[in-house]
């Protein structure tokens, strides 16, 4: 079982935790006494770990970890607060097992930084052979790549992109904790792109949407949804020299474009009727649309 502690805990901003220690009920007797019936030995926790302004590298690492483990259990130790997960105290590292519930991030073109959260739920599929032998967990996520560059050839860039997933994996649970996850093989990436465009680019994008809209039109989209996350350089990412900016100020992570070097284009299509746009008084168009990963050619 993989240990994702470093990837998940790395540079997190804050936690939000919902916890169930003793699930059960209290039976009140007419004599005034109370009988408490406890169910479950293991506390259940759902934790939302938030991240602010991650670099592209850190975000991609987190995204890869999610995609590889979207339907499997993994180990994560909450390093800073071991008291939160009592399973680590009582069962050791092999007892601190979790499953992913949600993954949502947003990147702003201005900053090219990623903000969002992942949500984890405690799992009872502990990393001991007696438990692991009960079942095999087999992740199936296999995106389809394409050489269709029609979308990125438009060279129309969004001002922000939201990243999320759609999945219908089956999950069995005991109490509030997850037990098994069955990977049905239908994990899909969803990009929500927001644009602020002048008329010429707006019509270019609208025409492309009408050509490719719906189930039939597919095209290629980069991992991060766009080839370049920013058209406006607030500081010269690509021209960092010692006279202008200290070496220690700008991390190497920022010196790149939105298209991860060497990464392929993934087959995708517009989600049905997902485009919304309006025109502001200064002739600038604001458009939102959703793109969903596709498995069919």
């Amino acid at each position, binding site marked *: 079982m993989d240990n994702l502690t470093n990837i998940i805990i790395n540079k997190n901003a804050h936690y939000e935790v919902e916890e169930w220690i003793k699930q059960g009920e209290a039976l009140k007797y007419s004599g005034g006494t109370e009988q408490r019936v*406890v169910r479950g*030995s293991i506390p259940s926790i759902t934790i939302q770990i938030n991240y602010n302004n991650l670099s592209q590298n850190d975000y991609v690492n987190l995204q890869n970890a999610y995609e590889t483990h979207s339907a499997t259990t993994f180990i994560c130790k909450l390093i800073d607060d071991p008291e939160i997960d009592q399973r680590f105290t009582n069962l050791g590292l092999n007892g601190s097992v979790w499953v992913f519930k949600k993954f949502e991030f947003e990147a702003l073109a201005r900053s090219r930084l990623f903000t969002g959260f992942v949500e984890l739920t405690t799992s009872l599929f502990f990393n001991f052979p007696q438990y692991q032998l*009960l079942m095999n967990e087999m992740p199936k996520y296999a995106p389809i790549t394409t050489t269709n560059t029609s979308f990125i050839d438009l060279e129309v860039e969004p001002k922000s992109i939201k990243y999320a997933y759609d999945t219908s994996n*089956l*999950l069995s*649970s005991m109490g509030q904790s997850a*037990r098994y996850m*069955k990977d049905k093989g239908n994990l899909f990436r969803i990009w929500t792109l927001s644009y602020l465009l002048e008329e010429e680019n707006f019509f270019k994008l609208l025409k492309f949407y009408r050509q490719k809209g719906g189930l039939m039109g597919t095209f290629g989209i980069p991992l991060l949804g766009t080839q370049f996350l920013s058209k406006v350089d607030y500081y010269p990412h690509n021209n960092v020299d010692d006279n202008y900016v200290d070496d220690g100020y700008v991390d190497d992570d920022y010196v790149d474009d939105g298209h991860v070097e060497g990464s392929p284009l993934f087959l995708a299509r517009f989600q049905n009727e997902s485009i919304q746009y309006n025109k502001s008084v200064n002739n600038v168009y604001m458009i939102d649309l959703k793109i969903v990963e596709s498995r069919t050619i």
Partner: protein
Amino acid sequence: MKTITNNVRSNGSIAIIHLFELEMKNFDGTYKETLQFTDNDIFVNYDNEEYTPIQITFDKCVESVDMSANTIQLTVDNLNTELLATVLESEWRNNSARITRIIYTPKANGDYEFGNGNMMKDGYPQLDVSDVANDSYNIFNGIIDNIDISEKSINVNLGSRFVAWNKPYPSQSYNQRAFTEVIESMTAPIYWGRSVPA
């Protein structure tokens, strides 16, 4: 007679878990194995037998004094299909099934009064019932009637042993009218303790 001792009531807090035993046979009728499950979230060690934790629930268990058969429906998680593989390669119909209820006091762990102590034994998380104050008793003892299987769950219908008394004798056909009455008595259902309907 069932008795609940003060063994587990002194602190006012009890935990209730159930153990399920389902007998599986080979298709030639020889004994194969007994599936042992618990609705606890970790393994349970009771009476030197180990029970596997699985998402398993059962509907209401009703006991009545009349001789009609009592049935319980178990719903077992089938998401990992491990149980399904065992069920499909064994004979389960008319085999024994038993449900045991264990009431115990969760043992304290450090500062936590009703904590999660004693969770590790023999190197992995399990509850050893003999380590905690407990009472156990049999709440159902019957036979497996039939099984429904779906992608997410397996529904097992358990019947009390009296269900066997209401099953018709298998019929045979003869082409001789003279033996009609004999044939009718052979094919008539057998009722135990009740008058035969007209």
